[in-house]
Structures are given as structure tokens and as C-alpha cells.
């Protein structure tokens, strides 16, 4: 299940639906990213390239499933205006053993960060600024080469 949506989602409800859908999984990992209020942040505005987002995420999920033998992997990613404390996205992975479930979730996060067509704009009392990609995020991808 991959969903790109502006609506909020429920982490716990999604985690339970994911877990119920699994058979043979010994390990289930979830990751969720939350808007932090650093430096007086008021809101995050997320823009995405609609026609490219789903195919790009589908490719990452296929790669993660094949590479780590995942039984399943779900991705939810929001766009639009999000306020501090709101969940931006989540990933859920399942595998027979814990190492693969963890590695699959980390792989997906590293690729979503730098290869899924989303861009974040920070809104503060004194103005707005686009979030710059971090060198460390690009470097994280080399870990999987």
C-alpha cells in the first residue's frame, strides 16, 4: 500500500492494519516523521511532483522488498500545509527476522528523503524558506550501493 495524500493519517491505526495484513512475519518496523518546531517553525508546506511521486515510491518499495526479502512494505506521505507535531509520513516493513525489517525501513527512508519528489518550505513568523537538501542525506544513499 502506497498513499500520497494531503489528509492526516493515524499512525497506530495504520500500524495495526499493517500488522493484521501480515502472515509469516516475525518482525514489524514502523517509522514516522513528525514536523519539529525548531527555531520558531510554525508550519511546513510540502509540494510534490504529482505525476512522478507514485512511480518513484513504487520503484523504491520494489527494490526494498527484493533486496531485503521483505514480506510487505507500506508508505504514506503527505503533502500540503502541516503544523508542528503533525506526522508527515510513515513507512512500515515486515520480514521473517528483525535485521531485514530494520534495513528495509532505513533503505526506504534514505531513498524517500533524497529521491522522492517532495520539497519542503518552512513558515516562520519572519518569513519562509525552502529546506535545503543535506549532504549527509545524499551521502546516506552511498551506504546502499
Amino acid at each position: 500500500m502506497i498513499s500520497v495524500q494531503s489528509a492526516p493519517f493515524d499512525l497506530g491505526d495504520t500500524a495495526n492494519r499493517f500488522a493484521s495484513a501480515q502472515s509469516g512475519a516475525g518482525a514489524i518496523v514502523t517509522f514516522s516523521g513528525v514536523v519539529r518546531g525548531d527555531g520558531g517553525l510554525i508550519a511546513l508546506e510540502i509540494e510534490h511532483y504529482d505525476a512522478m511521486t507514485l512511480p518513484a515510491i513504487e520503484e523504491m518499495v520494489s527494490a526494498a522488498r527484493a533486496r531485503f526479502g521483505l514480506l510487505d512494505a507500506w508508505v504514506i506521505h503527505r503533502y500540503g500545509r502541516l503544523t508542528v507535531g503533525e506526522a508527515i509520513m510513515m513507512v512500515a516493513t515486515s520480514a521473517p527476522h528483525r535485521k531485514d525489517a530494520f534495513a528495509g525501513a532505513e533503505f526506504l527512508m534514505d531513498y524517500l528523503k533524497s529521491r522522492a519528489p517532495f520539497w519542503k518550505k518552512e513558515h516562520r513568523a519572519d518569513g519562509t524558506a525552502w529546506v535545503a537538501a543535506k549532504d549527509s542525506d545524499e551521502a546516506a544513499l552511498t551506504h546502499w550501493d
Partner: protein
Amino acid sequence: MITVVYFAWLRERIGLGREQIETQAKTVAQLVAELSALDSYHAAAFSDLRAVRVAVDQVLTDFDAPLANAKEVAFFPPMTGG
């Protein structure tokens, strides 16, 4: 005729998110040269290509890529998902 789309600060700097361009450009780099010549907004957006990424027909590629029968070319800064 090719559709060119812009995201994030490229969209803001150029002042539009999408335009139709009549072009004979054979590569992304040639298309960028044509777009940069349109006006000072385009020129500013493409002034430092190290800060720009490109996708042809929704697939990430580089500036040497051929346009061939491409329908849509997208320009944007490095992605910040997750």
C-alpha cells in the same frame, strides 16, 4: 512542443509552474540554454545548475540526457522528502 514544469524555488523564481515550449533542443542542456535566453527570471533560475535536478517524463536523469520524444521535462532543487 514540450511541457516544462518547475517546482519549489525554481517555480517561484520563474513565476510559473508549467509552460509549453516549441523547441528543437536535442538534449536537456540545449533546452536549458533556450529557456535561460527567454528572460531574466529563467536566466536566474538556471544560473547555477549544480542546484538544479531534472526529470524527463517523470524519470530522474541528468543534463546530458537526450530529449528524443519526451513529453514532459521537470526542473527542481534536490528533493527533501521523508
